[in-house]
Every structure is written in structure tokens, then in C-alpha cells.
């Protein structure tokens, strides 16, 4: 049965790699055949189940987002259907080659990873007053089989589709 797990991890790894290379989250305007595709910074958006006045009282964003400083643009708007407030964040700097972006994501140095983490943590703080931590100390131990999974979970809040 181990090969089953190994196969699935390879498939999952392929999906992550595809995403790291920006294969599914690009707008049509970034898809151009026959030339290097440059990525413009996209908006990362989370909806928080709180009114806008609670999201940024006096214009002060929650600490995880405020900590990103002038490197990002932030927009707040009411979510339709009384679902709270949409927080949209994107980098201010210019476009980047997907390979360079993928390299930074793989090494955990992509600023868009920091945006995802800041958005998720801000949402949790606003909605629940705390950031939920994983269990510690862990009961697991590293093995060659679970190394890819461990690498993936270390980026648990910094990656994904947000």
C-alpha cells in the first residue's frame, strides 16, 4: 500500500508545483504564447465576518496586515449578502517572471506567501480573537515517506488558493 501513498504524494506534489508556477491562478491578460509570461501582482482577497469598522478601526489594520507596511495595497469593501467585509491585498511592485516567483515560493521567500498568511491570521484575529495554532509538541516523526508532506504543511497558511 505504500506505493499508493507515494503515488498520491507525487500527484499532489505535481499539483502544488503547477500552482507554484502559476498554472491556474493567472488572469487571461497574463497568458501570452511564444513569450515569457510575466506575472503582475494579483489581488488576494479574504472575507471577514465583521463590519468594516471592526476590521480597521480608525484606519488601523490588524497587526499581521499592518506589518506588511507599504509593500502592499489594501482595499476594504462590504461583502454582499451581509457576509462581512472583503479585504483585498496585493503587492505594489511590478510584474515578475513565473520561474522567479516559483523559486521564491519554493524557498518560502515569496512576498505573496506573506500576504496569504497575513490575510488568514488577520481574519482569525478579527473573527475569533486568536490565531489557531497546530498541536505542539508533535506526535509524529520524520521519515523519508513523509518529507514532502512535512514540507507542504510547513507552508500550510502561506500557500493555497487565497
Amino acid at each position, binding site marked *: 500500500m505504500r506505493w499508493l501513498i507515494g503515488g498520491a504524494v507525487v500527484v499532489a506534489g505535481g499539483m502544488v508545483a503547477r500552482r507554484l508556477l502559476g498554472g491556474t491562478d493567472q488572469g487571461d491578460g497574463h497568458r501570452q504564447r511564444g513569450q515569457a509570461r510575466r506575472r503582475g501582482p494579483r489581488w488576494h482577497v479574504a472575507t471577514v465576518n465583521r463590519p468594516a469598522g471592526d476590521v480597521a478601526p480608525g484606519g488601523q489594520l490588524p497587526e499581521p496586515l499592518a506589518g506588511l507596511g507599504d509593500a502592499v495595497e489594501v482595499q476594504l469593501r462590504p461583502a454582499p449578502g451581509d457576509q462581512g467585509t472583503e479585504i483585498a491585498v496585493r503587492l505594489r511592485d511590478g510584474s515578475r517572471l513565473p520561474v522567479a516567483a516559483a523559486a521564491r515560493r519554493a524557498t518560502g521567500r515569496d512576498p505573496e506567501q506573506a500576504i496569504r498568511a497575513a490575510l488568514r491570521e488577520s481574519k482569525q484575529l478579527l*473573527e475569533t480573537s486568536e490565531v489557531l495554532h497546530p498541536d505542539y509538541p508533535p506526535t509524529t516523526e520524520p521519515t523519508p515517506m513523509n518529507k514532502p508532506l512535512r514540507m507542504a504543511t510547513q507552508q500550510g497558511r502561506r500557500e493555497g488558493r487565497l
Partner: protein
Amino acid sequence: MKALVWEGANELAVRQVPDPQLRNEQDAIVRVRRTVTCGSDLHLLGGYIPFMEHGDVLGHEFLGEIVEVGSQVRKHKVGDRVVVCSFVSCGKCWYCQQQQFSLCDNGNTNPMITENVWGSAPGGCYGYSHALGGFAGSHAEYIRVPYADQGAFTVPDGVSDERALFASDAAPTGWMGADLAGVKPGDVVAVWGAGGVGQMAARASVLLGADRVIVIDRLDNRLEMARTHLGVETLNYERQDVSGELLERSGGRGPDVCIEAVGMESHSSGPQFWYDQVKQQLRIESDRPIAAREAIYNCRKGGSVFVLGVFAGLVDKFPLGAVMNKGLTLRGAQQHGQRYIPMLLERMARGELVTEHLATHTMPLDEAPRGYEMFKQKLDGCVRAVFQPTS
């Protein structure tokens, strides 16, 4: 502390692991008194859900006593006897406020995996892999319970541990299936699977006023249990023509509501079982949806099909044509237990909902690997194996 850990596909061991710690102010630590196997654990055990690590503690359906609380826990105190919902939910996000607790935005510390695989991340679940948060499971002496005010429920004095244990997962999952499938007085309801969740879905259908409830399985002891304890009709698919019987028992219409309580390792007596088994082993499809196909096929026109069994990925030969052309409502969910558990505990206290019969085998945690073997192979009539980590 002592815990049952996953050490690889079909490899379990009881060994020492670090004690859990309070990690958030809304956490509690619970000393586990009873914890029970669930059919969905078998998908983890067999390696069908590839997000387990060597050393992960299994178990998500449990009851115990609070021994430590974080500074922001308001509803509970040390010494409370609680049953804990298997899903970790914050109670504050939009989904929780819609009472769709298993869809919680904040209960999964590791949303990346499920966002990539399914498009969005559901909440977390104890002992159910790193795809659902990586929380240590309940087959241990102690467990950390995040958002304790939301997920832990004090058990009324008149309800025994044996009965209340199943308010953690099997009973609310089954109730949710009947409720969200829209079971109403006069309905004919068919339930595929006579395990714990299927039996609870059948009982919920009875209590919601269904006229006839028919449970389908291949194991006579489980069908006998359903007839005796739930007051429902049964069909053994190895000896009876399920489609013909369902038509006959529903006036030729087909059941109004069909509930699938089997999941991704479904069995069948026909060649379709081998078709799906081969494809699953070759990883051409990840899940065997035999009972789901039957539920869709047999449901009446305009009826409702609810998928309660756990599925993880992709299925083959899915009868989408029947769903569309018969105008079916197809729905599924992990359990929104926080929505139902207080009501279920009240019904348990009144004797309307009995569950003790599900616990066919009770043993110390040290014997948990044997318990899982019995549960997996259905040995000695095992329906659920209950472990007692602490006396």
C-alpha cells in the same frame, strides 16, 4: 501519555507520545474516557488518504473529562464531563453562523492542502490527517480541544458515557443526513450502510416522521441490529433484489430520500465491485462509489440523495445523467455537529435515541490494534470498537 498511532498503511501501534498542551486561550485539555473507531478511519488506515504522517494519533469520536482550560474558555470548567464534536469549528465565521460548522473558515491550521485538492478548505477534524488540520486524535489518554466552548458539550447527568459517546460523531452525522436531505412525515427513506452512521441516519428518519425506513447492507448482524434497535426495515443486498424491493416498498415510485452512509470503500456483490476495486488499486480512481450510484439510480424522480459516507477524491462512472434527468437534489457534507449535539443529548436523556448497541466491543487502549482489526474485518460481529484509555 499512551496513544494509538498510525505507522504506515495498515500498521498501528500503541506507544508513548508527548502530552498535549494548551496552545490557544480557547483550548481545553480533555482526559479521554471513551473513544471509538469509525468507518472513515479505515480510509486513513489503508492509506487511501495520503496526508498521514508516521506517528499521527487516530480517533475523532470521543467523550471525556476536562482537566485543563485556557483563559478564554467560558462555558466549561475542570471536571466537566463532555462529549466533543469531531469537527473543529470556531463558531464565529460566516459558515459557523450559518450553522454549517464543518465548513468553518478557521478550524483548519493547514488549509493549503484541501484548497488545492478540493478548491476550498473545510474545518479541521481530530485525528483525520494533515489535510484536516493535523490535530492529534482521541485514541489517547488526553487530547487538546481547540475552541472548547464551541465544540465540547456537557453531558447531562442522566446520560451514560456509553450512550453519549456517539453524540460526538455518528449520531449528529446521521441526523444531519436525514435533516438536510429533507426527510419529512410520510417519506420513504432508504439508507445504504448499517454501520454506526447509517443506523443513526435511519433512526433520525424515523424520529423525523418517515413512513418507511429501509436499511441496506450485507451483514446480517447489523441488519438485525437495525430492526431490533431502530424499528426499521432491512434489505440484504447479497440475497435480495434491492431495486425491485425498493420499488415494491414505495408504491413503484422509488424512495423519496436516499442516504448513502458507506463511503469510498463501498462493497457490492456484483462485478462493479471488482471494476472499482481494480481501478482504485491502480489509482485510476481514488474512491469506490458503488452505494452512491445505487442511491442515485433508485431514488424517485425529484427525490433527494444525501452523501454521508466519506469520499476523498475522484470517482468513475458517476451517473450524472440520472441526477439531471430525474431532477434529483444531490447533497453531501461532513457533520455540522455543533448544530445538533445539544438536541441529540436531550433525546438521549429521554430515551428516544439509544446508541449503546453500536459498541459491540469495548477494550483498553492497549488492545486498540486488535480492535481495529476486528472492526476492519467485521470479525465477531464488530460494529464499533470502543477504547477506554483511562478508567
